[in-house]
C-alpha cells in the first residue's frame, strides 16, 4: 500500500483579516513532482510552512509522510524526514560550503556525506569557499544540497530558481530531476510556467489562498477549453463565410488573428479562401493555449 507523501484536507489560515489559505486540499503521491504555481501572496509559502511544521493551520488537517506536523512529536518526525530549501539568502555567509553542509548534517539523525552531496550538485571544487563569495547559481546548489543532507523522503523547494540566470536555472533543473530519479518526492513552488511544465507532471495553480486548477499541464489547459489561436500573415486576404468552432476572427494590418476550438477547420478555411482570392499566405502559425494562458484565464492576472 502506497501511502500518499502529502495529504492535506481543507487547510485554512488567516493573518488578521486576510485569508492566506482558504480551504486547500491536495494529495501528493510518493515519488512524484508537484509544482505549485501562483502569484506572490497566493498562499504557496503558507501552505508549505504548514506542511513543514513551521505554522499551525486554523482549520483542516495535514498528513506528511503519515505524520501530523501540527503535533510536537509529529513535527519532529516530519522534520527528520523532509528536506527544505527556502529562499537563497537563508545561509551563513561566512561559513564555507563544506562547513555549512556538515553543520546541518549534524542536526539530523540520518545523514548524507557532505562530499557526496557536493559532488552530486557540482560544487565539489567550492567546498572551501565561503558561501558569501559564491555566485547565485552556486549558492542555490548549496541550498539544494542542504535540502538533501538528511537523505529526505520528501523535498520542499520554495522558488528554487527565482533570480537565477537561464544557464544557472538549467543546472538547478538538472539537479531537481536527479533528485526525482532517486525516488524522492518533490514539492516545488515557482513563478515560472516553463519550470512547472518541464519538471512536473502534477501541477496545482493557487490564487488567493485556493487551488483553482490541478492536474497535468496539458490536462489543465484542455479542461479549460481554451482552444487555439491561428495567426495568418497574408496581406489582402478577406475571410468570407464560416468555419466550425471559430470564436473570433480579427483583421490586422497584414493578416488575421483567429481564435477557435480546434485548428484544422480554421486552417482549411483560410487556405480555401486564399486559393479563391489568389492571395499568398506568407506565414501561418497555430498556437495552442499554454499553462500561462490557463493561468491568466483562471486568475485574471499575469504570473510574473
Amino acid at each position: 500500500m502506497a501511502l500518499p507523501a502529502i495529504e492535506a484536507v481543507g487547510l485554512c489560515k488567516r493573518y488578521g483579516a486576510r485569508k492566506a489559505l482558504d480551504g486547500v486540499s491536495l494529495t501528493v503521491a510518493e515519488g512524484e513532482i508537484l509544482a505549485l504555481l501562483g502569484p506572490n501572496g497566493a498562499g504557496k509559502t503558507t501552505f508549505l510552512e504548514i506542511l513543514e511544521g513551521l505554522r499551525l493551520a486554523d482549520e483542516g488537517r495535514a498528513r506528511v509522510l503519515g505524520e501530523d506536523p501540527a503535533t510536537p512529536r509529529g513535527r519532529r518526525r516530519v522534520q527528520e524526514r523532509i528536506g527544505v530549501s527556502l529562499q537563497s539568502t537563508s545561509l551563513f555567509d561566512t561559513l564555507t560550503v563544506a562547513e555549512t553542509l556538515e553543520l546541518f548534517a549534524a542536526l539530523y539523525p540520518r545523514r548524507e556525506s557532505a562530499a557526496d552531496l557536493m559532488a552530486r550538485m557540482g560544487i565539489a571544487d567550492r567546498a572551501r569557499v565561503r558561501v558569501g563569495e559564491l555566485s547565485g547559481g552556486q549558492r542555490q546548489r548549496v541550498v539544494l544540497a542542504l535540502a538533501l543532507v538528511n537523505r529526505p523522503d520528501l523535498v520542499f523547494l520554495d522558488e528554487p530558481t527565482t533570480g537565477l540566470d537561464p544557464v544557472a536555472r538549467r543546472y538547478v533543473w538538472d539537479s531537481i530531476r536527479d533528485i526525482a530519479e532517486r525516488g524522492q518526492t518533490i514539492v516545488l513552488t515557482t513563478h515560472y510556467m516553463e519550470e512547472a511544465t518541464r519538471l512536473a507532471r502534477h501541477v496545482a495553480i493557487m490564487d488567493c489562498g485556493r487551488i483553482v486548477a490541478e492536474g497535468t499541464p496539458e490536462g489543465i489547459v484542455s479542461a479549460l477549453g481554451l482552444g487555439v489561436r491561428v495567426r495568418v500573415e497574408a496581406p489582402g486576404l478577406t475571410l468570407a463565410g464560416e468555419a466550425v468552432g471559430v470564436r473570433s476572427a480579427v483583421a490586422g494590418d497584414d493578416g488575421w488573428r483567429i481564435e477557435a476550438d480546434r485548428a484544422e477547420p480554421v486552417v482549411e478555411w483560410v487556405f480555401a479562401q486564399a486559393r479563391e482570392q489568389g492571395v499568398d499566405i506568407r506565414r501561418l502559425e497555430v498556437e495552442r493555449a499554454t499553462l500561462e494562458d490557463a493561468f491568466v484565464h483562471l486568475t485574471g492576472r499575469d504570473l510574473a
Partner: protein
Amino acid sequence: MKALMALVGANLKLVVRNRQTMVWSLAFPLMLMLLLGLFFGHASGSSTRVAVAGSGPYRAAVAQGLARVPGFSVSNTNPVKAVQEVRSGKADMAVVVGDGRPARLTVWQSGADVAVNGQDALVVRQVAAAVQAALTRTPPLFQITVRTVAGGGGHTYIDFLVPGILAMELMSNGLFSGLALVTYREQGILRRLRVTPMPTLLFLAARILVQLVVMVVQLALTLGVAVALFGYRPAGGAGAAAVAILLGALAFIATGFFVAGVARTADAASAIANLINLPMMFLGGVFFPTSGFGGAFGFLVRLVPLGYLASALRLTLSNGEGFGAVGTDLAVLALTLLLTTGLAARFFRWESRPA
C-alpha cells in the same frame, strides 16, 4: 550532544570571522584602557621606562644614575631603537648620550603627558649633574632626590579602572550579542534552522556558550594587558568575581537578545544597544566613581546594573574581598538576569515581522 558541538563550532567560526565584532569587542576596550591608563594612571605606581643609548665614556654612568632613581626602569639600546621605542610606547623616555665635551645629552619624550614629562626631564638634569659631580670630583652643593608618590590609601586609578573596564566589556559584548540574531532572522537563517528537527533552544544555548567564550578571552586579554603594562595586581576574590562575571555576562546577553526581539533590523538593534550602552557606561562608574552622588543623579546611578557589576569586580579583584562583601551586588545582578531573561523570552521572534 553532537548537534550542540556542531552548533558551538559553527558559531565560534561565525563570531571569529566577523571582523567588525572582533575589533569592537577586543580592541576597543583595550584601547580605552590604554588611553585612560596612560593619561591618568601614569604618576601613580607605574614606573617610567627609560631607554638609554649612545656612546662615549659617560653613557654607562648616566645609565647607572638613572637606574638608581626610584620609579625609573632603565634599558640599554642603540639611539635609533631608543627613539622608536618612545614612538611605539614601549618606553616613556629615551636618553641619548653623545661623545665629546661637553657631551650632548638628548632626552626624547612621547609628549603624551606634559606634567609628567617635565618631571622626568628634571630628573634627567639632576642625574646628569650628579654624574658630573662624581666624575669631576666636585663635591655637590645639593643632593636632590625626586621620588614618585603613590596614590592615597594604596589604591591607584588603575585599581579603579581595570574592574570597570572588565564590567564594561561584559556589558557591551552582551548588549551587541543580539545583532547577529537579527541578521540571521532577516536572512531567513533562523527559519531554515527551525525546519530541522533540532530543538530550537539548542541554537540559542550554543550562541550563549560561544558568547561566554568570547567574553572570557576578552577578560583574560584585558587583565593580561593591565598586569603587564600598568602593573595591576589582582588581589584575590576570584570565586566571587567569577560568579559576578557569570551573572553579569548572562544578564547582558539576555538584554542583547531582548534588543534583538524588539528591533526589526540589525541597524535598529545596533541603535537600541547603543542607547543602553552609552548612558550605562557613564552612570555605571566605569571611568570615575559615581557612588558618592546624591539626589536624582545618585538615584539614577543606583538603577544601573553595570554599577553593581563594576562594584563587585572592584571589591573582589582590586580589594581582595570575598562573597560576604558583594552579596548585594550579586543579588542585584541575579535579579537583573531574571528580569532580562523574562523580557528576552517574551519578545523573542524567529521570523521577521512582515513589513
